[in-house]
């Protein structure tokens, strides 16, 4: 009988629920492991909808741009539907996942299809939005936020936006460029007066 076996039999006897694996920072060298799945263009020929571009800068407490962050996006298609069936080839034949690092100037840019309003079978209607996870050296746990669009009238009735105090809602709104309406600017402020709203999920 090995030590390993003892450990396993003890483990089976005690907990009903296994202890969950916690987070650790992505560190400074995540490019090695995550680069193969960088996806800064989510558009596909067979996915209909308005092509948009979202760009922005990630700022730290001193308003210094963060050159080593990585953002992950998860979104619905233009009909508000999520790709929810297991796919054969990882990330090739599904829509909705993006991953983009910031560059030396702390900027990221992503091209995608504008998501539609999300209406699950029994849920309240949600205004078009994109879920975002942010990872970087210095963050032990991911930051979770959402991108909404400044030109969507449905924002006023969105249950998540409405749950946020009004003066902070603006931090989640990607602003349409008046000259180029399909280009949006959305910046992330990790700290300070304009700190972005981050969620507990």
């Amino acid at each position, binding site marked *: 009988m*090995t030590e*390993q076996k003892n450990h396993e039999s003890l483990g089976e006897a005690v907990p009903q*629920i*296994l*202890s*969950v*694996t*916690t*987070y*650790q*920072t*992505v560190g*400074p*060298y*995540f490019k*090695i*492991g*995550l680069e*193969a*799945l960088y996806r800064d263009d989510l558009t596909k020929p067979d996915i209909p909808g308005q092509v948009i571009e979202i760009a922005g800068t990630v700022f730290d*407490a001193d308003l*210094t741009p963060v050159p*080593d962050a990585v953002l*992950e996006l*998860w979104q619905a298609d233009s009909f508000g539907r*999520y790709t*929810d*069936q*297991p*796919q*054969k080839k990882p990330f090739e034949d*599904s829509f*909705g996942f993006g991953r983009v690092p910031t560059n030396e100037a702390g900027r990221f840019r992503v091209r995608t299809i504008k998501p539609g309003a*999300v209406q699950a079978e*029994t*849920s*309240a209607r*949600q205004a078009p939005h994109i*879920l975002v*996870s942010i*990872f970087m*050296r*210095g*963050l*032990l*746990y991911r*930051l979770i936020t*959402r991108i909404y669009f400044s030109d969507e009238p449905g924002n006023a009735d969105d*249950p*998540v936006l409405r*749950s*946020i105090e009004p003066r*902070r809602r603006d931090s989640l709104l990607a602003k349409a460029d008046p000259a180029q309406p399909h280009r949006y600017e959305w910046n992330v402020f*990790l*700290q300070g007066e304009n*700190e972005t709203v*981050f*969620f*507990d*999920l």
Partner: protein
Amino acid sequence: MNVFDSPPTRPLYRNFQDGVLPPNFCPSYVSSVKRSPRQPLVPLPQTVSELTGPTFAPPENIQPVDLTKGPHGQALGERILVSGRVLDEDGRAVAGTFVEIWQANAAGRYLHARDQHDAPLDPNFIGCASLVTDTKGRFAFETIRPGEYPWRNHYNAWRPAHIHFSVFGPAFATRLITQMYFPGDPLLPFDPIFNSVRSQTARERLIALFDWETTVPEYALGYRFEIVLRGRQETPMENKP
């Protein structure tokens, strides 16, 4: 009640117990100071957006993954075999989930422009791989035991040996990025990243176990690393106050 999806059509995920998640503001980890939010996090309900995510058809059996074969030959260092399962808190296999790993080489050096540690690169070791868990949630890979390396967090600071893991799980809500450590590493008690986790049980979950069963005679030591993602609530319950 959860007004966003009531009654929920998808089971909701359990919240993390106190002390399991590291705080983002952790002064002993110096670079967290200017990069962590100060406002309290806003509770986010688990809507269809949070309950979906990229998922994949699992292979019938474990896909063998080998990080030790370089373009010119075998990577230098101690060969090891790492295997485990991705499970949820109820012990159910998480099949068909995408896992990414990356690590330093045997000398404690990453193949990355920003890593200027004065230790040799190994032309036969890149240090990354990805895989999809099989129908039983299993994964396995062969690699080189990563070296410890210095960093500038505080005087004479050294990171314990570790392998980075990125795991998607079934939904946006289960997305996990973490690090696997090695049993008996003398640097663990000094590491502010490892010790940012208050719960001892949660810290121990990050340490792989030496595994006699998967150790191959005359070849390599085996380590076992179980990854446990958030489980689902048995009955639809109130999500967040």
